[in-house]
């Protein structure tokens, strides 16, 4: 991967809870200014990810149907998505769990609840770290 100064712009958010989808969309679009596609489950995300071509994916961990880690594994099977950066967002933030999620190939884990004021900045930092 060549270093690039391209800022984070397109985010695909997968979140099953509709209320969190609302506040997250507001936070990332209105406060963060990102291009955002929000999917309610893993399968929908897999269906749309190629069309949307996100810079980064924000995955909830615990979801009915296809959960976060499974979605990640399926995503990685797509050649186009083999190296897309993925950030998990979870209410389970024990150190062991964080390590396990990272070992699946996530570049970072963001705890829930998130602070809408700081979440966009947090993601940009993660993106920048990843880019470097």
């Amino acid at each position: 991967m060549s270093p690039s100064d391209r800022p984070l712009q397109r985010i695909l958010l997968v979140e099953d809870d509709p209320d969190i989808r609302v506040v997250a969309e507001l936070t990332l679009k209105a406060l963060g200014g990102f291009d955002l596609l929000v999917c309610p489950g893993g399968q929908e995300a897999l269906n749309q990810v190629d069309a949307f071509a996100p810079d980064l994916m924000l995955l909830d961990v615990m979801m009915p149907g296809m959960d976060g880690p499974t979605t990640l594994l399926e995503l990685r099977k797509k050649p186009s998505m083999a190296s897309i950066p993925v950030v998990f967002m979870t209410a389970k933030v024990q150190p062991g769990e964080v390590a396990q999620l990272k070992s699946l190939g996530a570049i970072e884990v963001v705890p829930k609840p998130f602070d809408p004021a700081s979440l966009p900045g947090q993601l940009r930092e993660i993106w920048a770290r990843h880019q470097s």
Partner: protein
Amino acid sequence: MQAPNPHPRELERLAALRALRILDTPPEPRFDALTRTACRLFGVPTALISLVDENRQWFKSRAGLNATETPRDISFCGHAILNDEPFVIEDALRDQRFLDNPLVAGDLGLRFYAGAPLHDPQGLPLGTLCLIGYQPRAFTQDEREALIDLAILAESELTTNQASQSGSDQVRLDALIASMGEGVVFQDGQGVILSANAAAEEFLGLSLDQMQGRSSIDPRWQCIHEDGTLWPGDTHPAMEALRTGKPCTGKVMGVRLPNGGLHWILINAHPLLFDSPTPSGVVCSFQNISDRKRHEETLQSLVHRQTQIAAQVPGMIYQFRLRPDGSSSFPYASEGIAQIYGVSPEDVQKDATPALERIHSDDRSRIQASVLKSASNLAPWQETYRVLTEQGTLRWVLGNATPEMESDGSVLWHGFISDITDQKIQQVLLEQQEAFQRAMFLSAPVAIISTDLSGIVTSINPYGEDLVGYRSEELVGQHSPALWHDPQEVVARAEQLTHELGCTIEPGFDVFVHRARRGELEQREWTFITKEGLRKPVLLSVSSILDSSDTLVGFLGAILDLTEQKRTEANYRLLAEHTEDIIAQHTLEGAFSFITPAAERVLGYVPEFLLGRFPTEFVHEEDHGIVRRAHAAALKGEPPYPFRYRVRHREGHYLWLESLGSLLLDPLTGAPSKVLFTSRDITAQEEAERALRQNEERLRALLHAMPDLIFLIQDDGTILEVHSHDESGLRARREDLVGHTLHEVMPSGLADDRLARIRRVLSTGSVETYEAEVDTLEGKETHETRVVPCGTHTVLLIARDISERKAMERMKSEFVSTVSHELRTPITSIRAALGLLLAGIAGDIKGQGHDLLELARANTERLLRLVNDILDFEKAQSGQLTLEISRQDLGDLVTQTVVAAGPYAAALDVSYAWEAPKEPAFAPVDPVRFQQIMANLLSNGAKYSNSGGVVRVRLLRDERQWRVEVENQGPPIPPAFRAHIFERFAMADASDTRSRGGTGLGLAISRALVERMEGSIGFTSDAHQTCFHILLPSSEPKP
């Protein structure tokens, strides 16, 4: 050639010829005159009187011929006897019958033959008078007649010969027989006596007249055998000879005489055959052997008597002959040879070898040499030597013999050999006994001193020398008791004896030996004074010394040094008087014969009361058997063994005694004399042991009832005991565990871990607990195991199956985890929504609206903290809390936390006073969790401070630990609450929770976290201030 035919009456002719008894008799002049005359008369070279026998012609007279006979089958005479007229062959070569006759064709060259037969009176031709020429010639009728005349003369001569010779022979024979010393009796074919000579008349005591006509089977004869049995007439030798036709000789016969006397005769009987198979008579000849018989009998009785005598003598009488060729024999040996050599006299009569072989191989050459020497110098022989019996045992024998030289160069010994085994054994025993006594004398641990009758010392053994300190040379010849006895003792004993015996005993030697003189053993304790002047207690036994004739020749003193014994006795007495052990002697029947004073101290009975009584009188009825068995065992001399029983104290209660019994032997006779029991009061011990046993039983019941598995394990890992109410919780069957090491029953990694824990527990003395998944006989279980020290080298491993509890915990934990996740999801959207509003996403909200939003957000934060705390606490409780321990500078971490908490404190109008130490304070901690603890303490400090107060934060070095303190001024912690301050939801006042905004879990979580970091947490609180502290182990600073 034609052989002559036999005569028609050949058998009769031959019988008649033989009856003449002329065949093979010497030449006689009267026949020779005839043949000579014939030669002259007829002018022939040869004339013969030829007698034709069965297979030959034998010449009674032969003129002009050397041969005495020729075969009959080539004879001319054989032909001649077949005719009554002369048989004439004028030229044999011209006669077909004879031309090839060897007499004709051979060297003899016979050509002419003329033979006239010679007849006996019965007319049977016996032979011829024949003429032989070697030239052919004619033979005239005159010549024939002349030859017949000559033949008549010859016939007459032959017959005359028979008559005259038999007549003269008979006369001579009669004379001979009559003059013989032997008895001769002629008997006819029936055994009837025809004649007898004078000797026979004398021997038989009968005149010839009396005998004639009497047969051998006549019952008047009284004949006996040598053994005295009757000799029947039909077996008389004469009758035997008649019956068998053979001589019957060498018979010894006793003949009873008419006068009653007995003659012994040696009788021979010869049958008279006269060319007939049936005897025509018998001649008996006999010698009178009565005298010889008498001599023999005398000799036999002598021999018999000698044999009898020899048989009575313990040994053998013998003759031994050594021949020049080296062979030897026992011509005579008495029956005793069987005892000496194990052979019979007959065995060695011809050859002595069977006897000589019995001589012990070690002695054989010596005996041989001495026999040869005796043979060479004819000196008497005497030797002692050994003979091997048939049974393989040895006998000692003594041989004596006198040799004599015999005419043939043999040497004959007459001798006697006696069995001296018993003497020899006695001698050997005596020698052994002497050697033994000598050894005893020299090495016995007893002093032995002998004196003569007057008390002069004759010997002292080495032990005696050591005892008295004098050398043998210094003592022998000295007078006893001068040197080593205490004079006062001697005087005292003399007085005592004088008193006892009623006669004066001088204080001298007599004091010691007066009893020995009477054949008694005098035994008494004395004091000896050694050469160095030491006084030694001794036991002196004096006995008399008798010679072989029982004459008193001296005295023997045996002295035992009693020094050691006395010392032991003194010690023993001291011991017996002072020990708490009761020492009692019992008679063999069991009665007390001696008992130490301890009996009174222990049992309340004075010794005098117990003497003569039996222990069973005081022993608890149920224990009588135990005591009796012990007494019996002691009597049998069995090794002592401790036994316990109850004995009634004088005051009625029972005491437990433990005793050991042993048998005492009489020191002199060695016979059992007493039974000794030592007894000890073990009531206290017994009661304690009983209590212990009860406890043990109770404990065992308890262990058995407990659901836990309990292992008693040694520090080397050996499983000593396993307790479990059933086997299901065990890894293996009980018998596969007990006695085995941990390494044998579990994987080595686990065993190492367990062993490390066991050793740690044993070294620290503290209890350690761990949980483990265990493969049991029933499947997987979770065990919580406590390792508890139990003694210095063993621990108890108490394992409890907490599988169910663990399952519950897991469920609870999952529940909590799920609930907290489910709680966070709405909190996430509420918090984000409030954040978005406050961030002005819906336009600026000011005034009361903004305040309400802030209120909502603060409570959202609080709700989140509560959820987080509950989650942490549950994780800490279930052991799921994972720490990431690393080496951290505590100063840095505290600084960060103080800074982070600053706004919160400021909101409460409280400030933190903190100054980080200059040196880094390294400790192994999880930085996130440490900050969580600090945040909790700092917020608490702020919450419970008075408004405007200062919370002081300090980091101090405390030995090898770091001490972090957070101190605030404020109301004290209520004393009733202090003990529960680290429990969950513990807040002094329920209303407190809301007013102070705490979850009530903070300190509980903090303690759990601190302990996980191997630290501790505590507090002090007084009226004005409260100070919480954390102690954490320090890491050494980096070098």
